[in-house]
């Protein structure tokens, strides 16, 4: 639940959560176990293909939602089920309360339903004097603790056995053990009595199948089977997003849902209910069944060209499972009712701007969620888009507004960067770090040292030193990005050295500027578009075989976002598509295109480990190239634990949430140091800034370098 009024309060809440050691350990263990579990569950399955099929079928269902609802309703009614439509949560709750009153139900047992959490159904039922008992173990626990779920599939993941033991001691009036197996049996026996007494059962539905008018419910505990069997009335609450044309579409989702949620091939129970079943507790031997189909903003959402993809969500919770920020702060701080990346988005649409405005800033843009989403939803992009919308409505904070203004004017931006070189003189150390942080940084930023601005930016060096390459094999344009242009020009110089030696003729279009990702991250869409247009005009894509960048974040942004950013300008769109096709990252270019050979490098004998930048491994799906290059360049590559997990930089994220950035960095560096490698290599200057700054603060001996630097050094 979101209660913070502003970012400051939200950060204070985050800070408190960071001190919860139990939560941190639990979520760490879960994150690591989940990765293996999911991989095993999808072994021998074409996951990408399956996800694409789900995306297509859910998109089609969204487009046909009205017709599907009609068909579903007709078939369900023909089979003796009452179907209700609720435009919002209040109406759904009113309908269900009325059903309970009309059929004289006083006690309700419920199986898990996120939709009922969304409408806060229990509150309304209890206000009407009805006793409601959650029967999913996790839901029952949090119901008694008066909490919301902290995970969509494991709602009580934030609690320890001791907390549950105390709670059950209270409930039973007898001291209970903290043995988990025993606690589960206590719940079994206590809840059994609730089923016996209940006159109404409320469930959710994972699938609403139009061709049969039936529903499908996916559970592990089997509580949904009892909830839908024992009481004489059954109400199923579901969003219109659950509508599917046919059983085949449901079976397809069922292939991904449990695997993605918990790494299970299938849950213990899948219950398919079609029509008013036999119920021996009812007078006529037939169960009274009601389906309450909820809109609550969903039909608006599916009309939106960008946000309609939200309808693909199957509520598996995988986006939380892999989110490095969720892993730090848990679900209560990473959502309002819905949790994780999709939770940030749904909070805005279902619960409003006020609940979402802080949350949507807490995305580090590592794309881990997008990578596992069962519906292939571009979650990070949607989160950024909502952030931008909120800023457009509420006004832009000054720093983000100023950065937007500055970036739009390349000359001004570059002049400021050059001037910074003079401004930092008094605090610049010889080792390339700033001695102490400027006043604008608060003490939370001390976890890493910041680099100085380079004496000579790459663009100036290029003017003097551009190599002449005769009979070139390839013609490429270099895109430096701001960090390598003004902070780490030596990385660009190293690449130029390697390229020239391999017959690559290079151009450096001097009108290029920042790629625009920082302003995009800050929700400055207008500035982001303007910068994209500037860069597109600076490059003539047809003149080059490739446009190479050493920055993974720039590469992913240029490649994937530029065509989207200029979508409304047809002339630029064509250019952006051509531009996008030519973009390649350093490691892929050198390994896969130039195909450099180990014999051209002198083995150094050093041990190197690797940090995979988010925007390289997920943004560009590059995995092998840099690791092969490490070996080719004559170093021994040692694998690091969680190599593809974010380092915590996230561009402007680390400025906004330094305490989270520091924790992510700590995990990363602990893993790096555990490898025993003397060198840490990566493909992104932003990551390098973060990693070097952190290692410097630890007085570590590990050197951080761009892959290009090692190659340039060991080149024969």
């Amino acid at each position, binding site marked *: 639940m979101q209660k913070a009024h502003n970012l400051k309060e939200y950060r204070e809440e985050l800070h408190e959560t960071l001190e919860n050691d139990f939560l941190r350990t639990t979520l760490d263990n879960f994150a690591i176990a989940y990765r293996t579990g999911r991989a095993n569950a999808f072994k021998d399955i074409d996951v990408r293909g399956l996800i694409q099929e789900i995306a297509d079928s859910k998109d089609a269902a969204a487009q046909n939602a009205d017709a599907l609802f009609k068909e579903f309703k007709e078939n369900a009614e023909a*089979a003796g089920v009452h179907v209700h439509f609720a435009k919002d949560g209040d109406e759904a709750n009113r309908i269900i309360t009325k059903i309970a009153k009309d059929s004289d139900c006083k006690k309700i047992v419920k199986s898990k339903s996120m939709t009922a959490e969304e409408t806060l159904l229990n509150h309304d039922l209890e206000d009407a004097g009805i006793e409601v008992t959650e029967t999913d173990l996790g839901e029952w626990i949090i119901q008694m603790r008066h909490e919301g779920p902290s995970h969509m599939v494991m709602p009580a993941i934030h609690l320890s056995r001791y907390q549950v033991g105390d709670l059950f001691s209270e409930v039973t009036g007898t001291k209970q053990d903290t043995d988990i197996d*025993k606690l589960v049996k*206590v719940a079994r*026996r*206590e809840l*059994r009595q609730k089923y016996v007494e209940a006159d109404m059962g409320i469930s959710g539905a994972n699938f609403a199948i139009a061709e049969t008018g039936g529903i499908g419910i996916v559970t592990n505990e*089997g*509580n949904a*089977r009892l909830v839908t069997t024992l009481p004489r009335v059954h109400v199923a609450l579901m969003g219109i997003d659950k509508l599917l044309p046919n059983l085949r579409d449901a079976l397809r989702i069922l292939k991904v849902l449990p695997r993605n949620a918990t790494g299970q091939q299938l849950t213990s129970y899948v219950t398919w209910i079609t029509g008013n079943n*036999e119920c021996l507790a009812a007078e006529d031997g037939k169960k009274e069944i009601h389906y309450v189909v909820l809109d609550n903003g969903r039909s608006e959402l599916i009309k939106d060209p960008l946000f309609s993809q939200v309808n693909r969500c199957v509520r598996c919770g995988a986006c939380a499972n892999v989110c490095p920020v969720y892993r730090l702060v848990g679900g209560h701080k990473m959502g309002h009712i819905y949790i994780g990346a999709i939770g940030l988005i749904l909070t805005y649409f279902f619960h409003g701007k006020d609940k979402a405005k802080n949350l949507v800033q807490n995305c580090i843009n590592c794309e881990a969620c997008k990578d596992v989403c069962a519906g292939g939803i571009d979650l990070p992009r949607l989160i950024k888009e909502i952030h931008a919308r909120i800023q457009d409505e509420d006004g832009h904070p000054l720093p983000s507004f100023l950065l937007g203004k500055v970036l739009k004017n390349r000359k001004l931006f570059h002049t400021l960067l050059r001037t910074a070189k003079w401004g930092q003189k008094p605090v610049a150390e010889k080792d390339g770090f700033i001695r102490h942080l400027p006043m604008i940084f608060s003490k939370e930023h001390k976890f890493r040292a910041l680099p100085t601005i380079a004496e000579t930016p790459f663009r100036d060096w290029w003017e003097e030193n551009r190599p002449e390459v005769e009979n070139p094999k390839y013609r490429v344009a270099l895109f430096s990005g701001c960090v390598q242009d003004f902070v780490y020009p030596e990385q660009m110089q190293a690449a130029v050295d390697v390229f020239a030696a391999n017959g690559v003729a290079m151009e450096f279009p001097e009108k290029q500027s920042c790629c625009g990702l920082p302003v995009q991250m800050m929700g400055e869409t207008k500035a982001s578009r303007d910068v994209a247009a500037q860069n597109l005009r600076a490059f003539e894509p047809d003149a080059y075989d490739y446009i190479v960048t050493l920055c993974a974040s720039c590469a992913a942004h240029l490649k994937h976002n530029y065509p989207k950013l200029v979508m409304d300008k047809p002339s630029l769109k064509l250019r952006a598509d051509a531009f996008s096709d030519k973009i390649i990252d350093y490691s892929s270019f050198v390994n896969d295109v130039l195909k450099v050979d180990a014999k051209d490098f002198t083995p150094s004998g050093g041990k190197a480990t690797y940090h995979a930048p988010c925007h390289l491994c997920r943004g560009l799906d590059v995995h092998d190239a840099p690791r092969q290059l490490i070996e080719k360049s004559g170093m021994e590559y040692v694998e690091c634990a969680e190599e593809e997990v974010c380092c915590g930089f996230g561009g402007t994220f680390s400025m906004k949430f330094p305490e989270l950035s520091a924790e992510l960095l700590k995990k990363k560096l602990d893993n790096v140091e555990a490898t025993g490698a003397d060198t840490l290599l990566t493909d992104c200057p932003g990551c390098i800034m973060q990693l070097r700054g952190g290692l410097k603060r630890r007085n570590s001996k590990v050197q951080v370098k761009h892959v290009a630097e090692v190659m340039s050094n060991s080149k024969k």
Partner: protein
Amino acid sequence: MPSKEDLYQLFEEKAGLVSAKVTSIASEDDALKYVINLCGEKEACQLLASGCEADLSDKAEALCDTKQKKVIAAPGLNEDLYKKLATQAKKAGFECIDKGMRDHLAGVDIGFTYAEYGIADTGTLMLDCPSEELRLATMLCEFHVCVLPKSKIKANTYAVEKMMLTRMKKTPDYLAFITGASRTADIERVLALGVHGPLELHILLLED
């Protein structure tokens, strides 16, 4: 195309992974023997081992106390087979029922059923149970023993789609995929079996 033998093996392997106990049997008589033996060997109330000694609230305690004798519930069997089972159960001193599950809401020892299909790639049983008695027997038992004729094992859920649709269109229908015992990992992500339904699932693969 995997051979039949491959499918059986895959089914066994996958069902085993979700801690179902799979046994091959040659005849229905073997199945009955298995059930009677299992019922004899099990604790009077399996919950004893895992918390029956712990005090509950009065109402829950009272419900538990209604269970006095070992009970086998087998609704949905054909008449002949049920008669045989009932005779053997009686001899062994167990109560055997094929209806009246609502009088046994505290639980029965064994639910004995026949699956319609098996799904190899997840080790899943498909049971069509529009009859409430059958549904309750599979849920209120401590051990669920289910016979699956080998010829009914299909590769995956797509392969049973048509059969599902036939049943779903003959409304009302209540169909279940059952994969392993009832489970939860809601407390500290520690796996615990038997949270609402059976503590154990026994699958008897029948040669046919």
